[in-house]
């Protein structure tokens, strides 16, 4: 019988050995896949035993911190957002019931110390073996609380957004979005967030309008058209036009902006004046001359048609461009599929995000080069050592340097004596462009814009402001907000 017993012994040992193999599979290969599953509460709860890294503004102001609580003999760390709604969209939230959003979601690996950085891996492994609490890395954002506060105060009661960039580096200095929500309520009282009402519908308080809100750009898009026109070599800053108050497209008149007495008529003007007074008919003619393809091509150099690069989650950022039935529209043949005249002054299915328009202003300010926008300046380990530092990076060249210089002069004229005088700052040269997009028929409310940078001679700050459902024009509604935020940013004398 011993031969049979020996064989059966192999079977018995084989059965248990199979268990070791299967355990190895589940505890190594399958781990990552299971950890990502929505219904994996263990993973979610376990995340709360990690002391998440803090999120701080540029000056050290704490935007996200932890509150320790003992639950069933375990120390758990729950998030607390001391700034409430002020930074809600960028910082996001980390909760049990609704997982994560904003930087809390996209930078989770750093915040929980589970990134692949060698230093972090060593630290967390040692902590794990010692049984100590695992501590995450801290994020230091580029946001300036002073400017952010001004932006949010200026937007109070409205639906809209402000994005301010350091034109030279791409660092995001302010990213405001209204209506906002208190991330501290996400866990316990989400109903309160759902019930937030605003002057726009849907109020969408969770939507980060700065990076994910798509709006009709209107006349601020003329900056892109101007760059295309100047870059094409067919126009200079001195090119002459005669404005009759309208432009003929497809056999019909496209009229200038106007009031009860009919559209404005400017007569003979040069290119600079056309931008200064935002003359639609002139831009319509320019668009027809250089063609929709060229305008779209230039817009792509500014970053249109691509997800704007930022550290927030991909689904919280939207690309700018032509949209058709809610989806980004790539025309195969722009000359037949896109109306060049309306495109030239920012209508014709064009939708843009405030971040993208701030990048347009920054490109002009930075001599034609778009810097890659970023919001996480550096990441530090629990000991304070720098784990990762963001170095400013060139993103794209949007236009020639000479074009950028010409555009700066033209945009300065807008603020000095054109539609954007409300953005003037004492002793500082400001370059800007207004936008007023009629979103419906006549008499309805407008989406108003202002993009700007300052000081025009040595630009530091580039900004985009958008407001929904405004009765006035961009120059009277959005420009003053841009002015206040720029003032807050330039007055700080902080020159990183």
């Amino acid at each position, binding site marked *: 019988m011993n031969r049979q017993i020996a064989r059966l012994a192999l079977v018995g040992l084989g059965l248990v050995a199979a268990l070791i193999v299967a355990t190895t599979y589940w*505890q190594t290969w399958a781990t990552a896949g299971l950890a990502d599953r929505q*219904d994996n*509460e263990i993973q979610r*709860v376990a995340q709360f035993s990690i002391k998440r890294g803090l999120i701080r503004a540029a000056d050290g102001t704490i935007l996200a911190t932890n509150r320790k609580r003992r639950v069933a003999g375990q120390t758990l760390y729950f998030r607390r957002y001391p700034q409430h709604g002020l930074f809600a969209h960028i910082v996001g939230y980390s909760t049990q019931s609704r997982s994560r959003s904003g930087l809390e979601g996209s930078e989770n690996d750093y915040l929980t110390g589970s990134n692949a950085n060698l230093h972090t891996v060593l630290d967390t492994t040692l902590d794990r073996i010692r049984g100590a609490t695992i501590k995450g890395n801290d994020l230091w954002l580029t946001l300036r609380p002073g400017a952010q506060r001004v932006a949010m105060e200026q937007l109070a009661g409205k639906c809209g957004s402000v994005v301010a960039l350091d034109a030279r580096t791409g660092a995001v200095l302010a990213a405001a979005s209204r209506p906002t929500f208190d991330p501290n309520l996400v866990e316990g009282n989400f109903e309160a967030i759902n019930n937030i009402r605003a002057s726009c519908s849907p109020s969408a308080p969770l939507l980060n309008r700065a990076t994910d809100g798509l709006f009709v750009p209107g006349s601020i898009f003329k900056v892109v058209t101007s760059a295309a026109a100047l870059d094409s070599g067919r126009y200079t800053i001195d090119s002459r036009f005669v404005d009759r108050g309208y432009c003929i497209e497809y056999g019909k008149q496209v009229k200038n902006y106007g009031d009860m007495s009919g559209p404005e008529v400017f007569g003979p003007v040069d290119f600079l004046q056309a931008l200064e007074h935002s003359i639609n008919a002139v831009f319509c003619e320019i668009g027809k001359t250089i063609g929709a393809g060229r305008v779209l091509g230039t817009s792509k150099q500014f970053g249109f048609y691509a997800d704007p690069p930022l550290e927030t989650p991909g689904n919280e950022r939207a690309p700018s461009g032509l949209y058709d039935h809610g989806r980004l529209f790539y025309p195969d043949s722009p000359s037949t599929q896109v109306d060049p005249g309306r495109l030239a002054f920012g209508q014709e299915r064009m939708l843009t995000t405030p971040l993208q328009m701030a990048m347009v202003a920054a490109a002009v300010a930075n001599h034609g080069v778009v810097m890659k926008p970023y919001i996480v300046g550096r990441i530090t380990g629990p000991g304070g050592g720098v784990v990762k530092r963001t170095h400013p990076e060139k993103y794209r060249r949007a236009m020639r340097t000479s074009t950028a210089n010409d555009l700066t002069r033209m945009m300065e004229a807008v603020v000095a004596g054109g539609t954007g005088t409300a953005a003037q700052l004492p002793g500082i040269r400001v370059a800007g462009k207004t936008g007023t997009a009629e979103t419906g028929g006549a008499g309805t409310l407008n989406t108003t814009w202002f993009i700007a940078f300052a000081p025009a001679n040595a630009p530091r700050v580039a900004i985009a402001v958008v407001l929904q459902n405004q009765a006035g024009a961009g120059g009277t509604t959005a420009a003053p907000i841009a002015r206040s935020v720029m003032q807050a940013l330039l007055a700080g004398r902080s020159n990183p």
Partner: protein
Amino acid sequence: MSARNRELANLIVVGILTALGFASVYIARQEVVSTASLSYAGFFFALYLAAHLVARLAVPFADPYLLPMAGLLTGIGLTEIYRLEPSDAFRQGLWIVVALTAFSVTLYVLHRDYRRLESYKYLFGLTAIGLLVLPAAPGLGTSVNGARLWVHVGSLQFQPGELAKIMLIVFLAGYLREKREVLAQGRLKDFGPLLVIWGGAMLVLVETNDLGSALLYFGIFLAMLYVATGRLLYVGLGAGLFIAGAAGVYQLVGHVRDRITIWLHPWTDHAVYCSINGKMLPRQDCASYQLVKSLYSVAHGNWFGTGLGKGTFETTSGHQLIPYLNTDFIYSALAQELGLVGVAALLLVYMLFVARGMKIAMLAEDGFSKLLAVGLTFAFALQTFIIVGGILRIIPLTGITLPFVSYGGSSVVANFVLLAGLLLVSNRASAERA
């Protein structure tokens, strides 16, 4: 060093390990656990010392590794049960006292010659069947988790299947020893008993709704039949019959069908009908909830585990994530806290136990002893495989206990009787050699 001294040395190591286990649970969970927890290790060690003394007197030549391995496994189990639910650990401690008493009694009563059991084989066989049908008896049996495996007498509840398993092995060892030559000839009429036992296993399956138990009993039977006759054909035939029968039951019994569906497709992307609450839910939120949560627990352990006492088994609001954690799913709790390194070591202890058991069977002189040792050892291996394999999705999940580790009185008692049986066989074989 003599066998018993070696056993004592091993037990001291086990005692130290258990003390370390309790100490680490205490350190990790000071707020819910008192210093009294440390006395568990002392109490535990004293119990095993007593068992060792009994072994020293009754079976001086027996294998010196089995008792310490059983001690290690119960120690690990008790530590984890204590970590999960301190009050259960107290009850488990009492059951270990009962189990070690049963162990000592078995050794004492049978140490002169356990082979006289052979003459009572039919009594054992009948008692086993009686115990197996007990849960079906109205008023006594209760259905837990869809399977009828439990018997309630007053406030006491136990799983008669655990003891029935051992009695069945004693019966089979006796019966097969007697009939092995006849069976090996392969005459058609001798297949009668085989068919009877196949029918019995199917009956158990239908009655208890439990594929795992049927697989366990039938697997033990086939293994012992193979060892007795040396005919692989029987094993193939038996396995074929079992599969055919199981397939038939699959068609007839909804519960078994559900188990298979859960096993094959624990996750669904879309909502399916949930028979628990009548709603439409993804399967992982309904029928396969336990399996899926337990897999998450295993996966969370990763290489090194969270550490004893530091695992996550509750939501932050204190709601239990995995039901039956300290009985059926204790392996997933251990896998999370000890990690792959820890549970692989645990499974290696199981392998060693199986290896020692099989060695005892090979060294035994007579057929009854060989078959008894083989049956007991293989039952131990197969039961481990069925529960852990179910948790790891190798086979459909069945709620049976993990030998020596799971919380549960009937299981602990039965496994110590099993251990006593192996020591008796071992002692006899070694004594004859000495």
